[in-house]
């Protein structure tokens, strides 16, 4: 239990004032602007939007500034903000097949229609620190070529030959699960699992995805396709009477292609794992797709023995706002709890010494 502790008000006020001072850093250094964060720390902004589960670049940049670059704190701030606005409704499901691609690669086919488009990637960089970036300077303008056409998804190409399982079809009578409206319950369907994974901590998913590759719930994955680019968003507006365009959102999509399923009545085919996130979030969507696939163990009649296959374990611990709340609450005053434990311990020790006939040390710690 927590106890009301009086007398801390002035200390708290002064601590927050000190925090604001420290956040600002040395006053001789120019203050960072939200547009600088949004433009130049863009992948951090993408992560805060994805795990904060709110697409709004400016708010995510503000959260990062306020949190002094602590992204989990920033995600917490964004989640708290979303509770202050009413929800107008849900968008039409986005069509990633019509994405205006800025990056699109496949590790399964060299010659995919539309080609391998590397886009702005860290891949193939040498991971050597660049001393030139320590000083200001404008990089060269990007090279251009004939603009790209709309590209088919690699999974659509495989699907035509029946080599890969089709995506599960929607059922108009079943409402789409929403964990922001109802508490989690198990077993959880794939829509709810994907919502949970989409806002899950990247590090947690990365470790779980990695564990499946190392043998804890093996699923033999290939990166069928990773694509990043702008996706159009429409919202059915009751007042207008039709689906109105809202603009576009940059998203990353990952299609993992995994080893086979099949039966006496069904021809064997590849199975799939899926990842989708706001912004350029490649590591996140790859990890998400690995874990989406491993969590399909029940559906695919696979033996469930690894953490990444256990939906209750994964979904209950994936949210870094919940996790940080419970871990960090240990900092708050637990004086009464601790006093009662201390009392119990003293009693146990007294009994122990009495029974053993040994002398109890006179000096006790924590007196």
């Amino acid at each position: 239990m927590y106890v009301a502790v009086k007398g801390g008000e002035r200390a708290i006020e002064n601590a927050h004032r000190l925090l604001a001072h420290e956040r600002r850093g040395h006053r001789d250094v120019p203050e960072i602007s939200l547009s600088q964060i949004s433009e130049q720390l863009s992948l951090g902004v993408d992560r805060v939007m994805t795990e904060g589960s709110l697409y709004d670049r400016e708010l995510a940049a503000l959260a990062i500034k306020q949190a002094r670059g602590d992204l989990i704190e920033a995600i917490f701030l964004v989640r708290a903000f979303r509770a202050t606005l009413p929800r107008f409704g849900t968008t039409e499901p986005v069509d990633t097949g019509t994405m205006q691609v800025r990056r699109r690669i496949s590790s399964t086919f060299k010659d995919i229609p539309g080609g391998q488009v590397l886009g702005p990637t860290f891949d193939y960089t040498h991971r050597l620190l660049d001393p030139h970036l320590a000083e200001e300077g404008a990089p060269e303008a990007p090279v251009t070529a004939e603009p790209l056409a709309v590209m088919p998804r690699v999974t659509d190409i495989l699907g035509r030959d029946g080599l890969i399982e089709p995506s599960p079809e929607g059922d108009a009578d079943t409402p789409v699960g929403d964990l922001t409206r109802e508490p989690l319950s198990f077993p959880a369907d794939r829509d709810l699992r994907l919502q949970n994974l989409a806002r899950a901590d990247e590090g947690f998913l990365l470790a779980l995805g990695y564990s499946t590759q190392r043998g804890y719930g093996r699923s033999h994955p290939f990166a069928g396709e990773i694509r990043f680019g702008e996706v159009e968003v429409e919202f059915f507006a009751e007042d207008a009477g039709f689906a109105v365009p809202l603009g576009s959102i940059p998203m990353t999509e990952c299609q993992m292609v995994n080893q086979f399923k099949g039966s006496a009545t069904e021809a064997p085919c590849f199975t799939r794992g899926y990842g989708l996130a706001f912004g350029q979030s490649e590591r996140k969507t790859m990890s998400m797709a690995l874990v989406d696939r491993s969590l399909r163990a029940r559906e695919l009649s696979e033996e469930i023995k690894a953490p990444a296959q256990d939906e209750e374990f994964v979904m209950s611990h994936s949210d870094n706002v919940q996790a940080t709340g419970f871990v960090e609450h240990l900092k708050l005053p637990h004086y009464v709890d601790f006093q009662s434990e201390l009392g119990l311990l003293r009693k146990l020790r007294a009994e122990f010494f009495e029974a053993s006939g040994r002398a109890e040390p006179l000096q006790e710690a924590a007196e």
Partner: protein
Amino acid sequence: MAAERAMEGRRKAAMAVLAHSDAADIAERLGAVDVSVHQTLREPENGLVMVRGRIGGDGAPFNLGEATVSRAAVRLATGEVGFGYTLGRDLDKARMIALCDAMVQSRELAEAVEAKVLSPLRAEMAAKRSRRSAEAAATRVDFYTMVRGEG
């Protein structure tokens, strides 16, 4: 019915261009139009929409995460009602989109809005998209340019 659908198509196309444009650019273009008398039907307001994806890209829907949106509604003195919706929290942008949507439906104003607002904004949007796509295209791997045994 067909005329209604054609009008809906025109309105959607206009809304798409406007939603993709910066508020400052819309305001600048709108300044060149003799904006008709109108009243506010819905005060511009901020809210959220839950953005949905599809399992596997083309399957059953799931909730990806929310996005901030703004919306507004206006009515022209001649009766046309316009709605403005856009991603983000720019209330003025939503109001301007609503105003343009109303004018697109107006016999007298549609042409001016198309010529002075939508057409230039559409060109800017297309140029921006084309530039981005051209930049990405230059990073396409061209396996066929590999020639063995030369040099």
